[in-house]
C-alpha cells in the first residue's frame, strides 16, 4: 500500500521534473535562436569589428617631370608612428612610454593626442611624422614585447622635392587637408593634398586613389593575417612645361648677383612657362611631413615674404618697360610712323607742367627705333599725349598687361593699367590728360605683375597673339597609353595681328637697346640677337624718399629687364625683376644667363657656368635658401 503510494508520488514528481527540464531547455534553445538567428547580423558586425582592422594604404602622388624629363617631384618612404586609442588600456602610460622611447617631449605628444581626442578611437593619431630609423626601431622593439600594443608604425609615401627650393612657388607643396577641403572633396581625415602651386591646381590628377588592407588581429592587436588587399593606385604622372636647366640658371643667377626678385620666361609661340621663379623661396620638403610651428611662423613673419609668389602675386610699377606698350599702340593706331622723328631737348611741357627726360641734355631727333634704344622719355610723352589713356589701356590689354594672365596657378592677382573708366569707378573722379603723360613712361597708377610683362613680351615677340601661359603639358595616367598631351588652353583674347611695320620697328628698337648703344647691353649674347628693354620701378617718389629719411624699410628702386630672343622668330620671351637693384641694367645679366642656358641646351652644348664679376659674400638670412647679397646691398637704406 505504502509502496504503491510512494510510487505514485514519485511518478508525479518525476513528471514535474521532466516538464521543468523541457521548459528550461526550450528557453535555452530560444535564447540561442534569438542570438544566433534573430540578432546574428548585429553580433557578426561586432565580431568583425573585434578582429578586423582596415588599414589605409596611402597612394603615392604622381611624379612631376620637367619638359626635358628631369624629375622635379617624387616620393620617398617615411614612417609615421601613431596611437590607436581603441587598443589603449592606459592612455597616460602609453603617452609617457612613447615620449620616452622616441625622445619627444611628453607635453608635445599629449598636445597632439588632445587635438584629435574627439575623433573615433579606431583612427590612428599620428604622433611622429617622418620618424627616424632609431625611433622606429625603439618603438617596434617595445611593440613586440606587447608593452605598446596600441602603437602602430606605418610606412607612408611622402612627397620629396629633390631640388629643394627650386621653383617652389610654381610646384607648390602638400599638406593635410583642411576641414573645408575634406568636406568639399569628400576626403578622409588626414588626407594629404596639394596646398599651393601645381600640387594644388592639379591635385585631383596627382592624388591617386588610396588602397586599403583588411587584416585579422587577435585580442592584443597583433596582426594574424591579411584578408584582402586593395593596392593603392599611384597618382598620374605630370609633365610640366618648365625647363629645369633654365629654372636653375635663373635662380643661380639671382643668388650670384645677390638679388631677390622674380623671373618668368615663356615660349611666345605656345605660352609654355619655361621658367618661373620667385625669391626668396622656401623648401617644400618642410611641408611634406607636416611643417612644424616654428618654421611656419618664421615663413609667415619674414619681412621678405618668402611664401609670396612675386611672379604672379607681386605688383610693381613697370617703369620704362611700359614704353613698349605705348609704342605698339601709337604704331597700330597709325598716329606715327616708325621713321617719323620727334625732337628731345631734355624735357617738355604738357598741360602747364614740365616733364623731364632722364638725359638732361636731350636726345635730339629721335625715331621709334632710337627712342626705344635710348628709352627717350620726351618721345613717349608725346606719343602718350597723342594716344590718350584709354587707347593705352586698350593696347595694354591686348598685349597682356591688364588683368590676370590666366596661368594655371592659384591666387594670381590682376595687373592694372588705368583708364578713364577705371579711375571713375575707383575714385569717382575724372581722368586728367596730364596724368597720361606719366603713364606713357610707365609711371603713375600703373601696377603690374612680372608675369604680365612677360606676357607682353611674348605678344610682341609673336606678333600679336596673347597666349595663355600654361604649366602642365602632358599627363600619363599609368594605364599604358603613355604621355597624353594636354591641349594648350584656348586663348580667350581676340588675336590682333600687328602690322609688319610695327613688328619690325619694335623688334629693331629692342634689338638695338641690347646690341646697340642702349641701356641693356649687359644682356648681349653674340649671334643670338637678344632684344630687350630695361626699366626702373620707383618704390617711392623722390619727395617721399626725402620725407621718409632714415627708415628701416628698403626704399631703393626695383630693376626690370624684359626680353625676347632671337629677334626674328623668337623662341623665348620673358622678364627679370630684381628687387631693389636700383637699375634695370643690373637685372639684364640674370636674363642673359638664362638665355645662354636655353641656347646651349638647344644646341647640345655644355651648359654655361655663371661668372660673377664681383665676389659675393654670404650673409645670414632667415630662410635656408638665402641668396648671396653684395656688400652694397647689406648696407641697408642708403638714401
Amino acid at each position: 500500500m505504502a509502496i504503491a503510494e510512494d510510487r505514485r508520488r514519485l511518478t508525479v514528481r518525476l513528471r514535474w521534473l521532466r516538464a521543468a527540464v523541457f521548459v528550461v531547455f526550450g528557453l535555452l534553445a530560444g535564447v540561442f535562436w534569438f542570438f544566433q538567428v534573430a540578432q546574428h547580423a548585429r553580433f557578426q558586425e561586432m565580431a568583425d569589428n573585434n578582429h578586423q582592422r582596415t588599414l589605409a594604404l596611402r597612394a603615392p602622388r604622381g611624379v612631376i617631370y620637367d619638359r626635358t624629363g628631369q624629375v622635379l617631384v617624387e616620393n620617398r618612404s617615411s614612417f609615421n608612428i601613431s596611437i590607436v586609442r581603441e587598443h589603449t588600456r592606459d592612455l597616460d602610460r602609453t603617452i609617457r612610454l612613447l615620449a620616452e622611447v622616441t625622445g619627444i617631449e611628453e607635453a608635445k605628444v599629449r598636445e597632439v593626442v588632445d587635438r584629435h581626442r574627439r575623433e573615433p578611437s579606431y583612427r590612428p593619431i599620428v604622433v611622429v611624422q617622418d620618424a627616424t630609423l632609431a625611433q622606429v626601431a625603439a618603438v617596434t622593439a617595445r611593440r613586440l614585447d606587447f608593452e605598446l600594443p596600441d602603437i602602430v608604425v606605418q610606412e607612408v609615401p611622402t612627397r620629396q622635392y629633390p631640388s629643394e627650393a627650386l621653383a617652389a612657388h610654381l610646384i607648390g607643396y602638400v599638406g593635410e587637408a583642411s576641414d573645408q577641403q575634406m568636406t568639399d572633396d569628400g576626403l578622409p581625415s588626414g588626407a594629404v593634398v596639394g596646398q599651393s602651386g601645381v600640387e594644388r591646381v592639379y591635385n585631383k590628377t596627382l592624388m591617386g586613389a588610396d588602397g586599403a588592407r583588411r587584416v585579422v588581429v587577435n585580442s592584443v592587436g597583433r596582426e594574424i593575417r591579411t584578408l584582402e588587399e586593395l593596392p593603392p593606385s599611384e597618382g598620374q604622372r605630370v609633365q610640366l612645361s618648365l625647363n629645369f636647366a633654365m629654372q636653375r640658371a635663373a635662380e643661380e643667377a639671382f643668388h650670384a648677383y645677390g638679388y631677390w626678385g622674380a623671373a618668368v620666361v615663356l615660349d611666345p609661340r605656345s605660352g609654355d612657362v619655361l621658367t618661373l621663379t620667385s625669391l626668396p623661396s622656401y623648401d617644400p620638403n618642410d611641408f611634406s611631413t607636416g611643417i612644424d610651428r616654428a618654421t611656419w611662423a618664421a615663413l609667415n613673419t619674414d619681412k621678405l615674404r618668402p611664401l609670396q609668389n612675386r611672379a604672379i602675386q607681386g605688383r610693381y610699377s613697370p617703369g620704362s618697360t611700359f614704353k613698349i606698350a605705348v609704342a605698339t599702340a601709337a604704331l597700330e593706331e597709325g598716329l606715327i610712323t616708325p621713321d617719323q622723328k620727334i625732337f628731345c631737348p631734355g624735357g617738355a611741357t604738357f598741360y602747364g607742367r614740365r616733364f623731364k627726360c632722364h638725359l638732361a641734355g636731350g636726345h635730339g631727333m629721335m625715331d621709334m627705333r632710337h627712342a626705344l634704344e635710348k628709352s627717350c622719355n620726351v618721345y613717349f610723352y608725346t606719343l602718350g599725349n597723342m594716344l590718350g589713356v584709354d587707347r593705352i589701356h586698350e593696347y595694354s590689354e591686348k598685349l597682356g598687361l591688364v588683368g590676370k594672365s590666366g596661368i594655371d596657378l592659384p591666387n594670381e592677382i590682376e595687373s592694372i593699367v588705368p583708364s578713364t573708366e577705371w579711375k571713375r569707378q575707383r575714385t569717382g573722379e575724372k581722368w586728367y590728360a596730364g596724368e597720361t603723360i606719366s603713364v606713357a613712361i610707365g609711371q603713375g597708377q600703373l601696377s603690374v605683375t612680372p608675369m604680365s610683362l612677360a606676357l607682353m613680351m611674348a605678344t610682341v615677340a609673336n606678333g600679336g597673339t596673347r597666349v595663355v601661359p600654361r604649366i602642365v603639358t602632358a599627363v600619363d595616367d599609368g594605364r599604358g597609353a603613355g604621355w597624353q598631351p594636354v591641349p594648350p588652353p584656348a586663348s580667350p583674347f581676340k588675336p590682333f595681328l600687328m602690322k609688319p611695320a610695327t613688328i619690325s620697328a619694335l623688334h629693331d628698337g629692342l634689338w638695338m637697346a641690347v646690341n646697340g648703344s642702349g641701356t641693356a647691353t649687359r644682356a648681349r649674347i653674340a649671334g643670338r640677337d637678344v632684344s630687350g628693354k630695361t626699366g626702373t620701378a620707383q618704390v617711392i617718389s623722390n619727395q617721399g624718399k626725402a620725407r621718409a629719411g632714415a627708415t628701416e624699410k628698403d626704399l631703393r628702386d626695383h630693376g626690370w629687364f624684359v626680353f625676347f630672343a632671337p629677334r626674328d622668330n623668337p623662341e623665348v620671351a620673358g622678364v627679370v625683376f630684381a628687387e631693389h637693384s636700383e637699375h634695370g641694367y643690373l637685372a639684364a645679366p640674370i636674363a642673359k644667363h638664362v638665355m645662354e642656358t636655353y641656347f646651349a641646351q638647344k644646341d647640345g652644348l655644355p651648359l654655361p657656368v655663371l661668372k660673377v664679376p664681383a665676389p659675393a659674400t654670404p650673409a645670414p638670412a632667415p630662410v635656408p635658401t638665402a641668396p648671396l647679397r653684395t656688400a652694397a646691398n647689406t648696407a641697408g637704406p642708403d638714401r
Partner: protein
Amino acid sequence: MFERRLYFHIDWLLIAAVFALCAIGLAMIYSATGGPTSIYWTQIYAIGLGTIAMIACLAVDYRSLGDKSHLIFLAMVLTLVGVLFFGEVRGGSRRWIDLGPFNLQPSEFAKATVALMLAKMLGESRRRALTNNDLIFAGVLTAVPLLLIARQPDLGTAVTLLPILLTITYVAGMPVRYLGALALVAIVAAPVAYQFGLEDYQRERISTFLDPEQDARGAGYQQIQARITVGSGGVWGKGFTQGTQGQLRFLPVSHNDFIFSVLAEEQGFVGVIVALGLYLFVIMRSIEAARLAKDRLGAYLVLGVLASFTFQVVYNITMSAGLVPVKGLTLPLMSYGGSSMIATLAGFGLILNVRMRRFTN
C-alpha cells in the same frame, strides 16, 4: 564480474549519447586550443580514466554502495578537510590533491557522494512520510561538504550540491509549500547576502553582470565577448577551427568555461541544437532510469547525481550566452577538466547501475 543477464540491461543509448557529448567536447577543445596540444591529450586520458571509473561504478551493486555510504561520506569529508590543509594552491584557492602524474579535485567527487548519502538516508527511511527532522538532517549532511568546499574557496562547485538536496527531498515527498517558502527566503535574503555575505570581487561580478558596459574592458568583457561569440555563429556557424572569437582569444579560457560558446560560434545554431538535444536526451533517459528503478534508493541516487549534472549544464550554457554572471562552472562532459570528466562519467556509471539492476533482487 556480474551476472551475464545484467549485460543485456545496460542502457547503450545513454552511453552512446554521453560519449557523443564527450567527442563533441574533445573536438571543440582541439579547435579552441589550436590542435593536438597537451590539453587535448589530457582530456583524452581523462575520458579513458572516466570510462574505467564508469565501469567500476557499474560493476558494484548500488545497494552495497548504499550500505557503505556513511563510510564513503566520511572519507570524502576527511579528504575535503585534508585538502584545506594540504591541498595544492592554484589561482588563489586550495582545491587539488597532488597525486604525482596528475592533480585530483575531490570536490568533484563530493557530488556523487552526497547524492549517495542522501539517497540512502531518505530512500531507506522506514517512516511513511518525510519528517522535518529528516529534512534538517539531510540539510546538515549537505552543508558539511558544501561549507568545506566553499572554504577552498570554490563557491561554484559548492553551490552545485544544493540541487542534489532539493531534488532528492522533493521527490522524497517534501511538501511543495516548503519550496515556496524557500524561494521567498531567498528573495528576501538576497540583498542582505549581497551586502554582507559576499566578497568585494563577487559583488563586482554581479553588478558588472547587470550592466556589462560599465566595465567593458574589465569584468564585463567576458560576458560581452561571450554574447558576440555566440551571436556571430549564425545558423550554420563559422566552421571547425574557423571561429574568430575563440581562435583569436577574444574569449578567454574558451576550452574550459566557454566551450559551449566555441561550439555555438563554429557550429552555429544547428550545432547548438544538436548538443542541447543530446543533453536533453541524456537527462530524460536518466529520469526514466529513476522511474524504472527497483527501489527508492536507486531512484534517489539517480536523481541526485542527475541534479548536479543538470544544474551545471544549464548554468554553464546560460553563461556561455552571457546571460548569467561568469562563474567557474564547467560544462560536464564537454569542458576541459580531468576530475570533472572522471567524476561525471563515474556518476553516469551509477545511473546505469541503477537501471541495469532494476530486475535483480
